[in-house]
């Protein structure tokens, strides 16, 4: 028999005396939360379906092409030649990334407003610009990752199937890296700011996604109609309002494969001017989001 008796200790309240990282820490937390939110991580299973389905769709062609390129000997078929596939993969990814942005941007901004989380965040050591910058960085991270992962697979395929061996293959394929980064930035500029602006103004995720897709597709159809039919004097400049076409044309230009059928070519506008237009439109969209959040936070 023991004389020891159990005891319950109330540990009470433990004050925190550790590091406080202020605005920098707050921004980093909001950025990381944004990435998780878009990908549905640490959320219910049904929230993971759409983002991962789109990621799978974007990855599948790259996986199949690279897999076949490894199996089929070089020179047997040009169909599986990966050397010039970057532009076409971006073009395919660009369309899917439009859908991904329609999903991501509303997810990043709307729940915080709908659930009232902004009222909590407005008492934290950060400004509305800090919050928006962190969320914008999340949007760029997930969309950029979405565009880059197939290209990374492609790069591995290009290097791995190089007749001179893997190491020499990496060296031979290295010049594509800055081009890949540049085209990723172009597609991000084409879609992310616009999705962000619409999500900062609309109260429901599904409506924001629909409006985003309607604006992109509507602008493209409008520009196509005006430019191809030459219905307005100076109407060719409307080609700059079509973000998909502009990004695709810029993609081809960066990878050195000019497409004479593109809308910009039909309007006789150089792709570099198209990129400048994307930057101007994107900047304006970001400014609208900043203005809106200065009112809200």
């Amino acid at each position, binding site marked *: 028999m023991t004389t020891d008796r159990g005891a319950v200790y109330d540990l009470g309240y433990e004050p925190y005396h550790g590091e406080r990282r202020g605005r*920098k*820490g*707050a921004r980093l937390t909001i950025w990381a939360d944004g990435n998780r939110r878009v990908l549905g991580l640490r959320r219910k299973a049904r929230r993971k379906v759409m983002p991962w389905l789109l990621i799978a769709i974007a990855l599948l062609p790259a996986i199949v092409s690279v897999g076949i390129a490894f199996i089929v000997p070089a020179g047997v078929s040009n169909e599986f030649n990966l050397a010039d596939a970057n532009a076409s993969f971006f073009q395919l990814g660009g369309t899917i990334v439009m859908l991904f942005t329609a999903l991501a941007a509303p997810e990043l901004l709307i729940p915080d407003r709908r*659930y*009232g989380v902004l009222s909590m*965040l407005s008492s934290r*050591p950060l400004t509305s610009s800090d919050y928006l910058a962190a969320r914008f960085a999340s949007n760029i991270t997930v969309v950029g990752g979405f565009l880059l992962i197939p290209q990374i697979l492609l790069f591995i395929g290009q290097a791995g199937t190089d007749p001179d061996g893997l190491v020499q293959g990496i060296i031979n394929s290295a010049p594509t890296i800055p081009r890949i980064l540049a085209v990723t930035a172009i597609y991000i500029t084409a879609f992310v700011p616009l999705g962000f602006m619409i999500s900062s103004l609309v109260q429901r995720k599904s409506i924001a996604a629909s409006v985003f897709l309607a604006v992109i597709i509507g602008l493209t159809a409008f520009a196509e109609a005006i430019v191809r039919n030459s219905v307005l004097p100076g109407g060719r400049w409307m080609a700059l309002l079509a973000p998909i076409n502009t990004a695709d044309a810029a993609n081809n230009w960066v990878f050195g494969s000019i497409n004479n059928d593109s809308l910009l070519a039909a309007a006789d506008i150089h792709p570099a001017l198209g990129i400048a237009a994307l930057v101007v439109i994107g900047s304006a969209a970001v400014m609208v989001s900043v203005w809106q959040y200065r009112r809200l936070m």
Partner: protein
Amino acid sequence: MPDTAFTTSQIGYAYGSVVALHSLDLSVPRGRTGLVGANGAGKSTLIKLLLGILTPTTGTATVLGMDTRTESIDIRSVVGYMPEGPCLPLDQTAADFLIYAAGTAGLPKQAARQRASDVLTLVGLNEERFRYLGDFSTGMKQRAKLAQAIVQDPKLVFLDEPTSGLDPSGREEMLDLINRLGSFGIDVIVSSHVLRDIERTCDYVVMLDEGTLLNSGPLHPEGDTDAVRIELIDGADRISQELRNAGAEVEGDGPRLTVRYGEGDVFDLVRDAAARSGASLLSLSASGSSLEERFLEREVRR
């Protein structure tokens, strides 16, 4: 650390043409303070001004010695805020949300995890930490809101209508939690239109009405501890006589009397006098007038 939780000097705020606060001058000591007033009195506006969420139309304010106009980020590093409205992401678990809330206050990841766990235990949600906030009851949501306000270990916490929407037992639990915050070294500013909640939790009060200051001061003024207020069903004359014979001062007539007695426990004296005289007591309370009475009295004077 300054002696005051916050000060205001001629602070005012207007939503467009609607003036929410009229030139308030306040100096509120550290401890537990209640902001009292009816809906629309300006309590929430005052809190938002103190947090630097709103910029005052006129005047200035300091919180823990820091200027709300120029040092709002520094203020928000050391204060917590429980808003009156919803602030919980319903698609997150309580644990994930608390980690996020701690991170947005600048705590590193590991510390945020530890604090989230500790605070969820403190507010009684430890067992529910992996449940989604959307599945929480109103009482649990209010506790989660309180948890996010203190997860970063603030020096001062603003609680805007913390008992709003709670049933009586939930209200009691929330008031107990608020009372405990003081013992953790956290100063508390509680806004409420329920005067009994303020009486239960605070030792200083600021009364607002339609954006103006009615009164501010200690909730239980010193000097009234040897006086009681009694209300009788019958036997007022007999008990008055008994009390005077025992050396007490008796004021008032009819069924409501105020009794002062400086030579012993006034409550015991009233009890004994009631027993001897056969008078029937309806109520017996400390004579420091209740907050409700003080509030109504001030309103009438205006």
